[in-house]
């Protein structure tokens, strides 16, 4: 019998009502990496929004301990973009593209070596906002940094403005290295 799966579902949430944020807490430290997958994530209560995240140990860190560098392209623009934001209070799964009530995010966020207590934490995000509105749709790649050596056992995701709609699905996977 196997000792444990290498790639397994830790938790999954499909919203049944409009929700301001989604939090995964008491995450086991037994994995090597975590992957958070967004499926059909849409917005309510605002015209458009980026998607933020915060992480922490016990409770999420709300201090200015995040930074990120992004690269991507938006459907409306013929020029790809690159930018960064330093010393900020949240990380991003997308920034220049936006979700709306009809345009959904389909993203993967990789929390690398999330439970170690030695290094700052890097979170790679690969985000796709579905076609439907050229002003908001597109693709982005982001490398986030959380400047803490604490293990991550709590992840909170939330739109910059507004709330997630019912039907938005968030699934957290754990990957275990040999």
């Amino acid at each position, binding site marked *: 019998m196997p000792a444990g799966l290498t790639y397994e579902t830790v938790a999954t949430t499909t919203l049944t009502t409009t929700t301001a944020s989604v939090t995964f807490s008491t995450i086991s430290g037994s994995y090597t990496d975590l992957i958070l997958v967004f499926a059909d994530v849409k917005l309510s209560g605002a015209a458009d929004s980026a998607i933020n995240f915060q992480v922490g140990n016990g409770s999420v860190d709300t201090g200015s301990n995040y930074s990120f560098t992004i690269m991507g392209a938006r459907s409306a623009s013929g020029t790809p973009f690159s930018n960064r934001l*330093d010393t900020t209070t949240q990380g991003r799964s997308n920034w220049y593209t936006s979700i709306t009530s009809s345009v959904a995010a389909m993203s993967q966020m990789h929390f690398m070596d999330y439970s170690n207590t030695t290094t700052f934490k890097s979170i790679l995000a690969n985000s796709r906002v579905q076609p439907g509105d050229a002003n908001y749709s597109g693709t982005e790649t982001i490398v986030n940094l959380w400047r803490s*050596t604490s293990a991550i056992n709590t992840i909170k995701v939330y739109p910059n403005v507004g709330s997630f709609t019912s039907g938005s699905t968030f699934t957290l996977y754990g990957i275990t290295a040999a």
Partner: protein
Amino acid sequence: MAIRSLKNGTFSRSLLIGNTAYDPPDFESIATVSVGSGGAANVEFTSIPSTFAHLQIRAIIQTNRGTYTVDEFNLQVNGVTSANYSRHELLSSAMSNDTPYSQGSGSETKMANIPTISGVKANYFGAAIIDILDYANTNKYKTLRYLGGADSNGDTVGLHNVLGLGSGALYVNTNAITSIKMYPQNGTQFNQYSRFALYGVK
């Protein structure tokens, strides 16, 4: 061993009828290298089995490059060190409101050149996810794709490649990939706590 009950026809892959059948995972850990206190000039996975469809490397990386925060690391396969790779990347610098740029060519000595970070800033590590597709197929040239980079919270000293999306290919032969070697571009070693994990995908 598969077992079928003669009494009720229940099929099970376990030796105990009624138990949940064992379903072999499609994503398996093959090997992991965690760099120790002495550092490592390179990290190499050898004797890679040909039983999977694809490979994935997931890594956190820091090199010992001095002065500059940014560095890169390179990837070669099967001991090929000559200019028999093709490689192209889309890269971002850490400059605000910049435009991504590309690099690479059809004659490279590395299959991938992936942005990462040095130990100039303590505790900062880069991250990379590398997919090598159909690595054991002997009827085609091998190709990979990667996503990798590091954020240094605004350090712009000598800054260039910090985030990249890339692809690479080996054109010298169609041999199955049995070894993968990674090493720093500018530093002389990977620092302690760097970790490289190889997975097989079925």
